[in-house]
Structure formats: C-alpha cells, structure tokens
C-alpha cells in the first residue's frame, strides 16, 4: 500500500455526505423519529387550526360590521343635524363617496303582539329611522332582509317542509325594502331577527316561528321619547306599526336590539321634522299663538357613508370631516339660515365605531396565538429528550465516526440535520393536517353534532373485539409488552366504540345559539407559514443540546464503554 495519499496535517474540507447518510439511516430505520415527526406535526397543526379559525371569526365580524354601518359614520348629539339633505348632496358629490344615507338613532320601547291576552311583552330596542333606498346603497340592508319568497321551485324544494318561506307572498321583500305595508299603504317596521322570541334558529341557520308567532303581518307599538336640543324630555309618543319583514345582519347584538322604521316617521315621532319657527319675543295673537317667522329644518342624528373601491375608510373619514367643517362654516355665515350645524360631531370609521366589538376578538386571537405558541416549548422539549436518548444510545457510533476521521462539528451536524429534517417534515405534515382540518371543519363539526353512522359504530366495536382477541393471545403467551399494548388498544377502542354508541351529537358551535351559521374554513396562510418556521426552528433548538453533547463525547470512552 505504498500509494496511500497522506495529506499530513493539511486538512481538506470535510464533506457532509457521510452526515447525510448517517442521519438518513437513523431516520428511516427507527420508530422514534416517526413519533417526533408526529409530535411536531400535531403541535403545528393545532396552532394553525386555532389561529385560522379565530382569524376567520374576526374577518367575519369585521365584514358583518362594515356591511351594517358602511365605511364612515358622522354622529351628532341628540339635537341632530339640520340641512342634512344639502350636506348629503355635497358628500355624495365627493369622488371618494359611493353612497351616503341619513338616519336617526335613538332608543325606544316595543310592545309585542304576544302573549295572547291584554298583558303584552315589552322590549327595549334601538330604533333606526332610515331612508331604506339610500341605506341600501351604503349597507347590506336589502340583502339582510330575511323573509323572502323562494326564487324558483328548486329553491323552495330545498327548504324544510315547515319553513314559512315556502309559502311567502313575494311582496314581503319589497315591503321590507320600502318599510311600507303595501296592502294597507301604511308605514311599516322591520325587526331585528332576534327582537322577537317568535323566531327559533335551526341548525342549518334558518328560522322557524315559535309558539305560532310569525311576526310579519302582526302589529307592534313603538314608543319613543322626544328630547329637545336643550336636553328636555317631552311627552313620550307612540305609534302602531305593522311588521313588514325581519333583518338578519349577522351580528347578534344588532339583531337582538335593533328595529327599523321610515325616516319621516322617526323624525315626526321624535319632533325632529320640519316645523314652524315662532318669534317668542313678539306678543301672541288673540288665540295665544306667537307669529311664525320661518321654518326649522328637519334633522337627523347620523350620516352613514360608503367609500368607493380603492378609497380607504381612514381617507374618507378625513375628507368627510373637512367637508362637514366647511359646510358648517358656510351655514354659520349665512344669515338667512334658521338653524346652525352642531360644532361637535364625531366622524369615525366603521372600525372605530365598532371597536367595542372588534378589539376584544382581536385581543382574544392574539392571546390564543401566544398561549398556543407555548406548545413550541413542548415541541422543543420533546425533541430534546428524544435526541438525548438517541445520543446516549448512539455513543459507540459517535466513537466509530470519530475513529474514521469525522470531526466534532461533523458529528454535531448529524444530529442538527436530524432535528432539521424532523422539524421540516413535522411542520410540513402539520400544515397539511391543519389544511385538512380547517377546510373540512364544517363537515367535521356536523359529524360531531350528529349520531355516528351504524357502519362506523360496528367497525369500532369490531376493532375493539379484534384487540381483545389479540390481548387474550398475548396474555396466554405471557409477553408483557405486547400484552400491555393490546390492553391499551382494547381499552381505547372500546371507549371509542362506547362513546360513538352513546353519543347523539354535540354541536360545539351550535348555529341555533351562536350567530354565524358556519365555522370559518379558510387557512390563515401567514399564520401557517410563521408557525411552520417556528416548528422547524424549535426542533433545531431542541436537537442542538443533544448535538453539542454528541460533539463533546470523548471518542476513546465512546469506543470503550459505548
């Protein structure tokens, strides 16, 4: 062997080929890495699933919120804003504005038609006096009207046999859109879907009348209290309205409390309509009336605006604020005007307006993200303990590798690479698992809420019985480990079979209680990406300590005692 190629003390660059070979063989010839990959996958899938569903709920909440109030809300005090028609005309002329609508927002009492007998139930409600036509251009009011006749026979057939929509008069939708009962030509009222106890929500998100109280067509009495610009309370005023439709916005707080009446009726009831202006400094006539010197304009308490596509709510808010200020200045300077614009109005974006609803959910999502991210530590700890055991078991291998020239860094890289592969595989598998769960969350949810099919129950009992047979066989052979494993399998499968037999369906997210009919089923890919990277990172961190220990092992001791 004279042709040996000594490089005496001039080391070439170490290759990573052998490290790849060894770590690949460690991965493919043992069960432990499979367990580690499964653990990482479960951690990653759990975090992605929770964050995706929470993000979905937040998005649904925001989408619902914006569809209820538009992009920008101008709110005045109880005295209201005069000259709203002129102001709205100016606002609608802005290039950023897609639609604008006036309304009055107040509170009232609603006497319901139930129960039978003279004593009727009364609910306190939020009253929105609206202009239905222009409100539809700003919010989803028209789409939110729940009662409507099916478009065609196929749609009707898809409804439950006892669903009232199967036999509705098509006029009910138009009545709702106009807030007028067309049969009597009287102003009508639309109730939030949960204002009446008569509506029972079903698991598919539809409603059935409860106790026979189908509200459209019944009459309710609305009582409101006018308040003067100086804050004085006047005599309460009431009006009987026929219910023309009911509104489902998607936000329970809204649908539980809000009713909609025509703007003109609201202005009249609240004394915010156009009225004569008397000269109280003059002497009254023989009848005791003061001379009329003009008319005070009608008022509204809110303006809702929808931004054109491409314009942000914040940008529109700034533009509306500037327009309002300029308008108020002009009114102030005009001596012919009989009223002035309120100086202090709130101009808010929809997010600012609904922050009480949105912020808690946002905080909740972030808290869940932080809490579930602690699972990473579990993941790193698991990898660490598994790898520590592997390093101890493979001490002799480390000595062998060092004896054939592997460096300490090379040995460390074997285990780091091992951790990197486990983290990458586990994270990738976790993302796929989370994708499978999230995109099928509604069928899964539905399955949990229903009786298990007979075939599944029979299969579960069959598997449990097979395990019991295996248990008997291994027990007779007096093998401890197989006996233990078969015992565990028998217990788990029997419990599962028993659970499936006794279980009659539990909906976690019951649409008859919660508002959204479907659980969000879109993966939050940003969260998925960051979670997967975290999974890889913490797997490498978990493997780093055992890898460093492996690198520090004395090769002589490893060969002697490993």
């Amino acid at each position, binding site marked *: *062997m004279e042709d040996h190629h*000594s490089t005496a003390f001039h080391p070439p660059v170490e290759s990573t080929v052998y490290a790849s070979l060894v770590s690949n063989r460690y991965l493919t010839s043992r069960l432990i890495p499979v367990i580690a990959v499964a653990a990482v996958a479960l951690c990653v899938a759990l975090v992605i699933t929770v964050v995706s569903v929470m993000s979905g709920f937040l998005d649904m909440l925001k989408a619902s919120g914006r569809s209820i109030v538009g992009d920008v809300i101008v709110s005045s005090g109880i005295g209201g804003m005069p000259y709203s028609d002129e102001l709205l005309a100016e606002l609608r002329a802005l290039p950023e504005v897609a639609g604008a609508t006036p309304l009055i927002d107040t509170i009232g009492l609603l006497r319901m038609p139930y129960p039978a007998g003279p004593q009727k139930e009364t609910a306190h409600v939020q009253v929105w006096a609206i202009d239905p036509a222009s409100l539809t251009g700003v919010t989803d009011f028209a789409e939110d009207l729940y009662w409507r006749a099916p478009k065609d026979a196929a749609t009707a057939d898809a409804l439950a046999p006892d669903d009232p929509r199967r036999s509705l008069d098509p006029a009910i939708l138009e009545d709702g859109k106009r807030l007028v009962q067309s049969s009597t030509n009287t102003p009508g009222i639309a109730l939030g879907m949960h204002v009446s106890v008569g509506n029972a929500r079903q698991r598919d998100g539809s409603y059935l009348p409860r106790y026979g109280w189908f509200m459209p067509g019944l009459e309710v009495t609305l009582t409101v209290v006018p308040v003067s610009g100086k804050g004085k309370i006047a005599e309460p005023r009431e009006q009987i309205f026929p219910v023309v439709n009911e509104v489902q916005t998607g936000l329970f707080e809204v649908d539980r409390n809000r009713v909609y009446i025509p703007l003109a009726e609201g202005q009249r009831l609240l004394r915010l309509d156009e009225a004569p202006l008397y000269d109280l400094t003059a002497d009254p006539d023989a009848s005791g009336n003061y001379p009329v010197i003009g008319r005070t304009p009608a008022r509204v308490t809110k303006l809702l605006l929808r931004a054109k596509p491409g314009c942000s709510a914040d940008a529109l808010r700034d533009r509306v604020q500037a327009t309002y200020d300029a308008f108020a200045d002009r009114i102030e300077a005009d001596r012919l005007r009989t009223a002035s614009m309120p100086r202090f109005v709130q101009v808010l974006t929809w997010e600012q307006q609904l922050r009480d609803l949105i912020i808690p959910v946002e905080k909740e999502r972030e808290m869940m993200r932080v809490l579930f991210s602690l699972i990473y530590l579990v993941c790193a700890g698991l990898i660490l303990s598994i790898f520590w055991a592997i390093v101890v078991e493979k001490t002799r291998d480390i000595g062998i590798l*060092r004896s054939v*020239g592997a*460096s300490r860094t090379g040995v460390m890289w074997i285990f780091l690479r091992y951790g990197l592969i486990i983290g990458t595989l586990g994270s990738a598998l976790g993302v796929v698992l989370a994708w499978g769960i999230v995109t099928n969350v509604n069928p899964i949810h539905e399955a949990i809420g229903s009786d298990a099919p007979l075939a599944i129950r029979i299969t579960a009992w069959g598997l449990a019985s097979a395990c019991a047979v295996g248990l008997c066989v291994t027990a007779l052979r007096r093998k401890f480990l197989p006996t233990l494993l078969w015992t565990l399998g028998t217990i788990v499968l029997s419990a599962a079979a028993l659970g499936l037999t006794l279980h009659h369906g539990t909906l976690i997210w019951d649409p008859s209680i919660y508002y959204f009919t479907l659980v969000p089923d879109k993966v939050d890919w940003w969260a998925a990406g960051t979670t997967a990277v975290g999974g890889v990172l913490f797997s490498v961190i978990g493997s780093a300590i055992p890898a460093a220990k492996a690198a520090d092992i004395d090769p*002589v001791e490893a060969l002697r005692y490993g």
Partner: protein
Amino acid sequence: MAEQPLLQACRVHKTYRFGAHGVEVLRGVDLAVHSGEWLAVLGSSGSGKSTLMHLLGGLDRPDAGKGEIRFRGEPLSLQPGSALDTYRNRDIGFVFQFYHLLPELSVLENTLLPALVFGARAKRRTALRRDAEALLGAFGLDHRLTHRPSQLSGGERQRVAIARALINRPAVLLADEPTGNLDATTGAGILDLLAERHKQGLTIVMVTHDREVAARATRQVHLTNGTSDSAAAQ
C-alpha cells in the same frame, strides 16, 4: 543515517483521571514502527495496549509534556483537532476487536464511510463505490453488499471492518485484538487476510494478548506495567 520511523511513540505517558485520583497506564513507552513492517504489541489485559493504539491513531493525546507521538517525524501533539481528524481518516485505519460497524448502514455503506468524510463528489463517489465493491469482493463479501452487520457472522463483520480500514489506503493499519472475538479458524482467516495485505506493503500495528497471534507479525514488542521492553525481532 537510519531510516526515519513511519510512526513513533517517544517516552509516552498516559494517565486516566478519576476525580482526584489518577491511574498511570503508560509510563514512558518508546516504540518505532517502520514502513512495511507488521508489529505486534503483546501484553496482558490492562497493560495499556489499547491506550497505546488510541494514542498512535490520534484518538487521544499523551499527558501534557510527557512524551509524544510522531508520524513521519512530525509530532501529533502540535497539531490541531481538525488535523488529527484528517490524520485518522487518511493515514490510519482502525480495526477493533468488536468490529464497531454502524448497525443502520449496509456492508457497502460501512466500508465507504471513511471515504465519504472528506470531499466525495458524485463522480468520485462512483469510483469509490467500485473500489469498495472490489475490496469486499476480494474479502469474499461480494454477495453481502446490501446486508446489515446484524445479518453477518463475526468473521464477516471483521472482514468488513478491515475493508473499511483500508478504503482510504492508509499508511498504517492499527488492529486492536482483531481476532479476540473470533474462534481459532475464523481468526486464522483474518490473520491470513492481514498477512496478504502486509505482503502488498501495508504497515500493520496489531495489539494482542495472544502469543500465537503475535507470532504472525514480523516483530513483537512487549508491554508490561505501562512500559515497553526490548523489541524482539522474528
């Protein structure tokens, strides 16, 4: 001027520390291995044979300031760890009593392992694979290439270990009781194999407690109480 030894131990001391206590295993061992010779280091159990072999192979270092190991005249003690890694990979081949094969790797992969440690591009790997197959074929293992060590007999495992030690064409083969775990017939076969390689010019240092095994070497050195006595030429 005498020929420079290929590998040399000069007044080497080695002490193992166990807390406050120390056990001095080697006490000034002198040894010179010349190119092309087959040296047997004879000694009883605990005499420091394996320790001496680890020192010669660069797996361990002598006590600080107490002797040194020289390869081609250059002291190993002055070299950094990375240079010793290269030395073990390129210049030394180890054969152990208990074979020390990686159980997850096949026969072929175990043999190739030292060749893959430093620079093994795809083209080179193909050539290396051919070398390994030829080496294993020469050792009668060509039908065992894809087998795992657990599927081999003791003699076969030791032949794989020798093939692994030779794959990088080292200057010196260090064999620690290479027949210690084998029956007499199988052991004789392994010694025949070493003898054949020695004839081809391979330098071998073999430690053993067995005089009959040592008798196959061209020279013997006795290690007693941590010191080497006079070398006995055969």
